[in-house]
């Protein structure tokens, strides 16, 4: 999927193949990349790219919007 097609609102609705499994694989990558660990509670609320960004901010990661 080309990068420019992904925006803050991309998620389960708009990205084919985004299911609970692939979402966790993505989460795993993001956690490793930014050296953070989200709680189960936080994970369950993640539905879109924006949710990921908010979670990262909460854990002190600087994000350029």
């Amino acid at each position, binding site marked *: 999927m080309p990068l420019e097609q992904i925006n803050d609102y991309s998620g389960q609705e708009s990205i084919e193949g985004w299911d609970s499994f*692939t979402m*966790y694989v993505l989460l795993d990558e993001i956690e490793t990349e930014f050296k953070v660990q989200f709680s*189960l509670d936080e994970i369950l609320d993640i539905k879109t790219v924006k949710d990921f960004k908010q979670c990262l901010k909460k854990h002190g990661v600087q994000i350029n919007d």
Partner: protein
Amino acid sequence: MLDEKKLSYYIGKSKTLQPFDAEKKIRIVILGSFTLNGLEEVLRVKCSEIQIQCNTYLAAYNQYNQEILNSQSELYKFSPDITFLIIDTRSILGELFFSPYLISIEERKKLIENKLQDILNLVKIFCSKSQSKLVICNFTVPTYSPYGIIENKTQYSLQEMVYDLNEKLRHNLISEPSVFIFDFNGFVAKYGERNVFDYRQYFYGDVKISFDYLPYFANELMGYVKSVMSINKKCIVLDLDNTLWGGIVGEDGFNGIKLGNDPLGKSFVEFQRHLVALHQRGIILAINSKNNWDDAMKVISDHPNMVLREKHFACMKINWDDKISNFKDISQELNIGLDSMVFFDDDPVNREIVRMNLPEILTVDLPQDPSYYVQTLLELNDFHVLKITEEDKKRGEMYLQQQKRIELGKNAKNLDEFLKKLDIKVTIKKADEFTIPRISQLTLKTNQFNLTTHRYQEEDIRNFSKDPKKIVGCTRVEDKFGDNGITGVYIINKDNDVEWTIDSFLLSCRIIGRGVEYGILDHIIQKAKKEGVKKIKGKYIPTKKNKPAENFLPDFGFTKENDFWVYSTDKPVKRQDHLMIKIE
């Protein structure tokens, strides 16, 4: 040492896999009691890395009972070569996983017995409906008990229940030829329960093998895949300096090398001990080292702490030639393909040269620190076989005998004299329970002297041997230097009263060139003639490797008739006078 890539790597990579026309294909089914998403992708990528085309089917979550019980299920429609059944302790024990002592000892015993019977019943049904190999994971023994430190003072405790189930499973399936048990409990112990089981992933989606360890798990399962495909390695080729001992014998001298008495020296001794153990079960050892012959041989024969001695090596290339040509010589002398070899060398430059020039050899990345050599060796999953035959255990000895034959050949005036001097005895017999595993093994791994390269599993051979329309025979070859064991196989289809077809005819490469193949074919023709058969038909199906069998039928006197080579049984046969043939 084994350092697995992340699951995301495999998921990404699996999406880029193109269907390719591989010579080797495998179909894998995964049946599980919990979420195993991702396992398929890892297996497919790992197969493609070793040129196997892999098709997979992951059964729906916790549907293993339905899949096995229903003859019309996707499992059977998929027609797998290998099926992994992965059930976890929690799902077997249910509520008792948490509160095992709510019920009495007797009830606990009964429960385990019932669970055992459930699984055995599934296995039985599976085996009656499918030709697939079945690999069952055993159960993780819980490390926690509500009884805490007095768990081991408790009769038929939680842990004992699971140990008992594992033991009973093992004993009940020990002689099932197509069922194997993967020691999942051992896997969890090796990598650690806290790594393999992650509570967050478990609650998130009933994941019981964490994403980080799923690739390690798949790697263990690949041991089964490789042996089902018969691409296991047969020969370990070793460098000497800094590989079998510490230091360089040419510079540090006999007394200067590290072997045995100090911490570093001990690591080399232990490495050698494991190599000897592999040798004893049938892995061939060879040396490929740049060294002075005399320096190296003095260590091998006289060093008090050497474990590996001359008798353990089927071939020793200790010289200043380049390693590539040495490899080619080893391959030729031992009659073993380069793709059956594993290479250990401490020098990264040498490894790179071998990798570039002979990519079919598995060149192992030895760690810089020799104290991790052992671990690296033990983590290879390339030596697994589904059955260790008597021939495997004797292989090392057989290669030494082979060297003596080569010596005799050098001294004989001509081929006839050499063959006469060998006193070859050939015993031909029909397949029976004792020889079926070896016959199947030979059809699976013989590449060179093999007319048709039809591959048959044990079950196939067993069925053929009961079929009145077929003859399955095997031959044992002995000579004055020793017993080569069962090294030849033929399968004949009795098409009708006057015509037979050779379905398979093969000889292990160890005994090619001694006229044995002609003796066996002569026997088949005589037998056909006795039964009134007029014509024997055969085919040569070329592969990349079976050139040695190409001219076998025409050389014997078969003539071409359309697609077949044909022999009339009334045509006289040139006797192989140097062979003593015995029919059992």
